């Protein structure tokens, strides 16, 4: 044991080498090396948690840097999991750090979770959160749930039995995932960088308390934190009876985590009759993304012309319309345009692509 490194926590009343040894023996998996994951990872690794896994398949982008404080400007484009692992290894070489630059799926999650004692969910979407929750319930794995929205955060500890014999999970709060667009994500809603810093750090504190047996972790409690007022509101969670959850690996593998989640496509493909119906709505814009020389030429009064070659320029302007329909010759470029636009607007606008394009519905143009 590196007594000097841990000296300031070793001298803590009631901590000592016993608690430190518990940390050194513990295995924690952090999912999402983002705003919540970065500070949590730093404190877990610094405190001497023996084994730390980092799951994130994403790469570092410029807009991450205001809150994902493990990364430097020169890291843009690199994998988060690997970059975080490198920096953390430099922080504390005692810790065995394993990066997993993968997307969690039903097929890989159980085997991965089985290797760790505690799971920290610091992801940014409901699909992952329900998948992680259900995997933890199945494996009876303690789950530390951390999430932020705007200026507020939520923190909870699930799958541990309290002295009232209660054992809750995320579905006791929200049995089914919100539908797409129901709850705004950080891209749409914004987040002050320091907020996930606070909530992620609190999550690390909960894990350290759980490992060492200190204090009162938030077992079966949901903590609400408001950055603007510094107010905390702690709610007691009891078990609900009104949901189904996988009880076996077979059932788990048959669950569908892709429907109705915020992560589902932010645009939809429509046919000509749906397009005609949407056309009647005042706040609809129809955009032909074919190049200017392509035929048939469409009525410019009805169809705005934004060739793919000009799309990036077009994206710099703000679109007032609520419904945005893209079309092209075969419905392939229009999907690309819809995808690109949904990156900008997420679920705040209704974005469509005409399936099959002008070629399929030739008689209607």
């Amino acid at each position, binding site marked *: 044991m590196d007594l000097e490194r841990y000296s300031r926590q070793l001298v803590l009343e009631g901590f000592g080498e016993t608690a430190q040894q518990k940390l050194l023996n513990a295995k924690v998996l952090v999912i*999402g090396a*983002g*705003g*919540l*994951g970065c500070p949590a990872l730093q404190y877990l690794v610094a405190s001497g948690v023996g084994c730390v896994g980092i799951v994130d398949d994403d790469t570092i982008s410029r807009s991450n840097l205001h809150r994902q404080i493990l990364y430097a400007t020169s890291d843009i484009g690199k994998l988060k999991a690997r970059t975080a692992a490198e920096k953390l290894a430099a922080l504390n070489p005692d810790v065995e750090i394993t990066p997993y630059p993968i997307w969690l799926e039903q097929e890989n999650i159980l085997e991965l979770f089985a290797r760790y004692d505690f799971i920290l969910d*610091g*992801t*940014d*979407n*409901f699909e992952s*959160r329900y998948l992680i929750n259900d995997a933890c319930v199945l494996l009876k794995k303690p789950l530390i749930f*951390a*999430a*932020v*929205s*705007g200026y*507020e*955060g*939520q923190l909870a500890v699930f799958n541990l039995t309290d002295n009232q014999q209660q054992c809750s999970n995320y579905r*006791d*709060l*929200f049995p*089914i995932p*919100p539908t797409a667009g*129901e*709850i*705004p*994500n*950080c891209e749409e*809603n914004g*987040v002050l960088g320091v907020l*996930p810093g606070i909530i992620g750090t609190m999550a690390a504190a909960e894990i350290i308390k759980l490992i060492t047996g200190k204090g009162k972790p938030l077992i079966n409690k*949901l903590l*609400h934190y*408001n950055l603007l007022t510094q107010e905390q*509101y*702690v*709610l*007691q*969670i*009891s*078990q*609900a*009876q*009104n949901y189904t959850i996988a009880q076996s690996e077979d059932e788990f593998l048959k669950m569908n985590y892709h429907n109705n989640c*915020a992560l589902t496509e932010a645009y939809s493909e429509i046919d000509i009759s749906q397009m005609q119906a949407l056309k009647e709505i005042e706040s609809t814009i129809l955009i032909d993304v074919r190049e200017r020389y392509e035929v048939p030429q469409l009525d410019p009064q009805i169809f705005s012309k934004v060739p793919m070659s000009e799309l990036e320029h077009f994206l710099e302007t703000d679109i007032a319309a609520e419904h945005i329909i893209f079309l092209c010759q075969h419905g392939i470029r229009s999907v690309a345009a819809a995808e690109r636009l949904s990156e900008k607007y997420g679920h705040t606008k209704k974005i469509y692509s005409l399936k099959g394009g002008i070629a399929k519905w030739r008689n209607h143009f």
Partner: protein
Amino acid sequence: MEIEVISFGKIAEFIPQQKISLSNVSNTDELKVYLEKDFPALAGIKYKLALNKNIVQSTLNLNNNDVIAIMPPFSGG
């Protein structure tokens, strides 16, 4: 009967913290109907109620000066 309503996240944007006087509302199920009628945006999103800091799993009777918290799920990270 008067109760206090506290809400979080997106819900706080249309239901600010307030005291409301209720007549013909005696339990949390009836309160949900009342709130969704008064604040139609609430009907469109998932939320959970807590009565005096306890999550409501099935309807509970309301008493004068109870505090109801309304919270949406958060997913951001």
